[in-house]
């Protein structure tokens, strides 16, 4: 039906043609057969009834002559018939041949048609196949494309994932590094802060001791004396001891007194730092010399 839809004219012609062929085969052949059957009996029946002796002799001669003529005629008729027959036979043969040829032709045509049909069919099939193939191909391509895309996508995703992972890893590493850096900085900051705090308190202590150090009169530049001071948590002085004398008793006493008098010494609140201030050694070096 698809075919008809696709090739309406060709199909119609084909049908008409086929119908004509069928009609021809059925009725055409019968027409020829009837003619043959009617001619034969007519001839035989009429000629068999006429007979005389003198006459039959003449007659017989005439008859013989007639017979002979008749015979000749017969012979001739027979021959004609034969001829006719031959012709007819020939004609039949021809017809047959023609018929055969026609048949053959028809067959051929049919075959051709069939072939054609087949070819068509084949072509169609081919076409369909091709189409299908194309479709399939197309589909396949699409699928391939799709697959490809999917793969690409997957790959991209993978790459992305890898990149992400890498990035994440790097990020993590960076973060770790940063954290470490921060931690380090924090530690350093703490250390620096500690140091700053310590230095601040050292400065405070220095200032307080300096304020309380009444320098002995006279030449004291060049003298130096070390006093070790033990300090209570509150900054009070437990004891102060000259551990390295300047050789000048008054100078030594003045510095030892300065450390005692400076009590309570300002100490950092942070016990961690304050512990560094339990024992202090003061180096008295007037003029820094």
């Amino acid at each position: 039906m698809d075919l008809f839809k696709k090739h309406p004219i060709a199909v119609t012609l084909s049908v008409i043609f086929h119908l004509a062929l069928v009609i021809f085969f059925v009725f055409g052949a019968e027409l020829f057969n009837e003619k043959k059957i009617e001619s034969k009996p007519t001839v035989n029946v009429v000629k068999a009834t006429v007979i005389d002796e003198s006459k039959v002799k003449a007659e017989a001669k005439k008859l013989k002559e007639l017979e002979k003529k008749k015979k000749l005629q017969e012979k001739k008729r027979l021959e004609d018939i034969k001829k006719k027959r031959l012709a007819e036979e020939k004609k039949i043969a021809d017809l047959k041949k023609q018929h055969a040829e026609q048949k053959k032709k028809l067959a051929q045509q049919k075959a051709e048609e069939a072939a054609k049909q087949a070819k068509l069919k084949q072509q169609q099939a081919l076409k369909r196949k091709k189409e299908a193939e194309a479709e399939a191909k197309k589909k396949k391509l699409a699928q391939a494309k799709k697959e490809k895309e999917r793969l690409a996508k997957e790959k991209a995703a993978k790459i992305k994932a890898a990149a992400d992972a890498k990035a994440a890893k790097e990020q993590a590493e960076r973060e770790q590094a940063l954290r470490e850096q921060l931690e380090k900085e924090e530690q350093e900051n703490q250390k620096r802060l500690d140091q700053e705090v310590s230095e601040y308190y050292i400065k405070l202590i220095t200032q307080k001791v300096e304020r309380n150090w009444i320098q002995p009169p006279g030449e004291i530049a060049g003298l130096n004396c070390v006093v070790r001071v033990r300090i209570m948590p509150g900054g009070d002085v437990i004891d102060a001891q000259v551990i390295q004398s300047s050789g000048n008793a008054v100078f030594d006493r003045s510095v030892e007194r300065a450390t005692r008098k400076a009590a309570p010494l300002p100490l950092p609140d942070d016990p961690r730092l304050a512990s560094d201030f339990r024992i202090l050694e003061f180096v008295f070096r007037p003029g820094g010399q």
Partner: protein
Amino acid sequence: MKRTMKTVLLLGTLLSFSAMSEVLRIEITQGVSSAQPIAIVPFSTTQVAGGLAVDIAQIVSDDLARSGRFKPLPRTDMLNKPTSAEHVNFRNWQSLGQDNLAIGRVSSAANGMVTVQFQLFDVYKGEQLTGFSISANRSDLRGVAHRISDLIYEKLTGQKGAFSTRVAYVTSKLGINGQLEYKIQVADADGFGAKTIVTSSEPLMSPAWSPNGDKISYVSYEGRRSSIYTQTLRTGQREKLRSFKGINGAPSWSPDGTQLALTLSKDGSADIYVYNVITRSFRRLTRSYAIDTEPDWSPDGRQIIFTSDRGGKPQIYKISANGGQAARLTFEGSYNARASYSPDGKYITMVHRVNGQYRIATLDLKTGFINILTDGKLDESPSYAPNGSMILYSTNDGLKSILAAVSSDGKVRQKLRLQGGEVREPAWSPFKQ
């Protein structure tokens, strides 16, 4: 700033060092040169029959205050007045900000004598620094007090105290006859106990102590001519140096006591001469057409400084005691005169005119830096204490000339109340030999 940098650097090294030693080291490079707080508790006199007329603790307190090195606690601020060690509560004295504490007791001894005991404590260390027991006549209690001052001073400053020394000076006063009467007196360093060694109706000037303090040379205009006399204090015996025409003035003993530098104008203008006590000979030291006067020996006896106006204005010059070229020492100001060496020879003190006013100044010979110590209008005749801690000078109090003392750093000034009229030209004695 520089110091700060250094401190920071030091702190850095010290901190790192401390990491190893576990002991924090702190560098102290400066202190204060303020007076030391000291509490001198009134001495107990309950063990003295009849009590005492002399307040020893007050004399000690005044001595130490006058030096500028101590800041005695007023008695009214004392929470209690212990007179023996067992009654001392160091916390009390710490809370009063006192570094040192002196307590004492006077008790009767045999033969009408008294025994003075005193103890000096380190308030922060809570221990005794020194303690003495001195026997003395009741009449000499001021002397005992000055000795205690010397002991405390020496213990706490490392320098010899000069409280037991004396000062000589010139007074002038209208006499009963309406004439000016001149005297040279010798008193304790605090101005008490003045004794006249010579009196004259003519001016007396320029008393100068011999190095061992047994003699005083001075200029006298007796007979209306200037002459230099040397008088032995113990005997009152005096000797007149050969005098010359013109000026005979400004005697100054060499540290070894063998020579006197003086000013003579016998050869024209006033110049510095050196008189040899042993050979009794004179040697001319300077030769200039200007006035050269007021010589003073360096402590090592090698140099003599003097005032000269050879440059147009009076300035201080230095010359070798053996003679030679004089070198100018003062360049600041248009008037510098009457110079004398500090006992350590590192400074000279002199009269320095600034804005038309005459003030006592010191010149640091090493740096050339002039430090003006006084703020009077007419401060004159500076004289170092033998320990260099103070300078005695004369100043105008109203219309009257009086003596005053200034600590050699200029921080503490005190007027000396002396009996009599005008007081001038103080000369601080050397340490007692």
